[in-house]
């Protein structure tokens, strides 16, 4: 039981922090967002730092790092409000590709690690809400190839990706956990239409329409892989959220110590002081559960799923409170586009609608509750 970071982890954190400090200030971030969302350029810079290979096994040219390193990087990317598809491309995609045949891994994993290919999960369907097993996109065998038909929504960085990993149904009812295959689809393939758009948090996403589109099989029984990859995504969101909340809190503290009202600083009003104490509480609870999320990723599925849902519930509660209160503590300036706090708030808000919202995961926690209780329960 040990929550210290190793020197290597601290060095990793510093490397990301230095890049943010030097190359990713608010002006650039704001400009990227205004221009329609982050571009491949930022992803490329992260690749140049070697970060896109973080989770790629070393035999494929990556660093083969684990969950804690991913957490460290995500937290710093959150601190810097970096709107690049790092979690999608560098954490979730390699986890999915682990299930792929050797030749598919050999084709894609080195490119992710070294040549910055961007592969993203395209799983969201209109009626699915947050249920991973709700898959209506159909996969059909035609001769020696697979053809996919269906549509996927809000695919992260979808119009900048080099490939999509698409869950599609091989058999079973629309919400069966069995019969869900994973496929790799390249944009530009006949029958694959991509419509990109900006997102509320300054990134990009896309609507993906597949009409008998040729696809490469990743694996035929993909649901458990999908679940695990989404859990990795949830842990990444938790860490990013901690970075976002930590920085937003620091910004707010600075503001409270400088802004004057009625002849004195905001920081001298007890009601506001107690509010920031509550903000600190939510931040530290979220940080605790972010550790928990990452450290539980290696456990067997039932314990892992329960823990990740618990962490997402905490993230949802904390992000909501910290985001809303930090904006409120700023007053008018907090709701303007020109001020950085509102952008942290928007990203924090959008964490809620990714990989299952608080109510969804509360349901998961409730369903998976056991007689015992606690971290080791």
């Amino acid at each position, binding site marked *: 039981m040990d929550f210290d970071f190793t020197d290597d982890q601290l060095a990793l954190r510093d490397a990301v922090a230095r890049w943010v400090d030097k190359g990713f200030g608010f002006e650039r971030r704001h400009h990227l967002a205004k221009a329609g969302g982050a571009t491949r350029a930022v992803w490329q810079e992260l690749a140049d730092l070697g970060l896109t290979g973080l989770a790629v096994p070393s035999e494929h040219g990556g660093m083969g790092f684990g969950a804690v390193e991913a957490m460290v990087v995500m937290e710093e990317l959150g601190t810097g409000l970096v709107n690049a598809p790092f979690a999608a491309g560098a954490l979730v995609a390699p986890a999915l590709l682990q299930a792929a045949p050797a030749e598919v891994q050999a084709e894609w994993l080195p490119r992710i690690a070294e040549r910055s290919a961007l592969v993203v999960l395209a799983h969201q369907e*209109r009626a699915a809400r947050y249920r991973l097993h709700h898959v209506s996109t159909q996969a059909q065998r035609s001769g020696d190839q697979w053809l996919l038909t269906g549509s996927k*929504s809000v695919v992260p960085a979808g119009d900048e990706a080099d490939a999509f990993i698409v869950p599609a149904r091989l058999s079973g009812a629309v919400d069966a956990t069995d019969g869900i295959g994973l496929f790799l689809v390249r944009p530009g393939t006949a029958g694959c239409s991509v*419509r990109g758009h900006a997102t509320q948090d300054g990134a990009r996403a896309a*609507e993906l329409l597949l009409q008998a589109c040729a696809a490469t099989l990743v694996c035929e029984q993909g649901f458990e892989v999908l679940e695990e990859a989404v859990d990795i995504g949830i842990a990444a969101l938790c860490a990013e959220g901690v970075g976002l909340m930590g920085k937003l809190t620091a910004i707010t503290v600075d503001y409270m110590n400088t802004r004057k009202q009625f002849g004195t600083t905001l920081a001298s009003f007890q009601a506001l002081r107690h509010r920031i104490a509550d903000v600190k509480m939510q931040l530290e609870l979220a940080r605790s559960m972010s550790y928990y999320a990452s450290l539980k990723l290696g456990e067997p599925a039932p314990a892992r799923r329960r823990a990740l849902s618990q962490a997402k519930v905490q993230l949802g509660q904390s992000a909501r409170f910290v985001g809303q209160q930090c904006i409120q503590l700023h007053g*008018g300036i907090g709701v303007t*586009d020109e001020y950085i706090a509102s952008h942290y708030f928007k990203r924090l808000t*959008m964490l809620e*609608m990714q990989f299952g919202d608080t*109510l969804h995961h509360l349901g998961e926690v409730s369903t998976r509750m056991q007689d015992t209780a606690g971290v080791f329960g």
Partner: protein
Amino acid sequence: MDLQFTPEELAFRQEVREWVAAHLPPDISRKVHSGLRLSRDDMQSWARILGRKGWLGYAWPKAFGGPGWNAVQKHLFEEECALAGAPRIVPFGPVMVAPVIMSFGSPEQQARFLPGIASGDVWWSQGYSEPGSGSDLASVKTRAERVGDHYIVNGQKTWTTLGQYGDWIFCLVRTSNEGKPQTGISFLLIDMKSPGVTVRPIIMLDGEHEVNEVFFDNVRVPADNLIGEENKGWTYAKHLLAHERTNIADVNRAKRELERLKRIARAEGVWDDVRFRDQIALLEVDIVALEMMVLRVLSAERSGKQSLDVAGLLKIRGSEIQQRYAELMMQAAGPYALPFIQEAMDAGWQGDAALGGLWPGAAHHCAPLASTYFNLRKTTIYGGSNEVQRNIVSQTVLG
């Protein structure tokens, strides 16, 4: 005690309902019901329609050409307009400056300014807040120096809502630095087309241009435009604030938006999800309780028998409820709240037809939801932040 409206009140409501149904342009109400962007023309055309009927100044006394309605009638009018999907009346002219002009303006000022307000032809803006003033409105720094029969105005106002459309602006200006901050403030009407007036947009976190900074650089304002006496402006401003009524709770809008939330929940498949539905049920209780509180105030106002000093509570609760329904709508949308496609805020936007048009997932009604959530964070900040309101409420409770 009686929860029912009188037959007269019901007849009044029916009259308003029918008139609104007949006169509210359907394309405008469709935008309101869908949370889409309203243009200046949308707002002003509805104002002019009301103006022609004599209802833009719906709270005005008969002596100034208003309908002379009592508190309940005013509430019913507001409710019918809200439920029908009418745009909120832009309040700066008919609701805010007009009562000040009626109470403290000269007969000449009344004759000069009130008709344009009543007709909806002249667009007024509010010049209270300044950079740095925040909740401390009396810390006015914009100076007005008397030179002959003019004031020379220098300074800056901010958070001027829809100031980009403004013809005139009423301002608190500093005419004296002596005594308490409150005592040296005057109430001045300024033609926004005057040389030296500059309006600069402030873009809000939702990307919209709703508020502005207004700069005054040696602006010459005829002394005739001063309301009442010099250095008494704070008194007039307080009078104005005291006349902000139950509408501060915006409960009628909340009722309309709760109905919309239910429609969205159905469309998004969460209406039958017990967890999400419980959130709606809790909000419904909140809205009924707020409406009952508003009705209690109306009853007290009309009868005069019991006083009910709950304006602060109405502001706090009303704003919290606005934020809550916006949050639930966004959460109902789920992943479809994430896209940010500004054009989709315009009615009739069809998007990229190649993918079937419209919003991702064809969930067109999701387009404005996140933006509205972000936008409404302002409601607990403006109009006296909820923290200031709690100060005020605690003063009435604790002394």
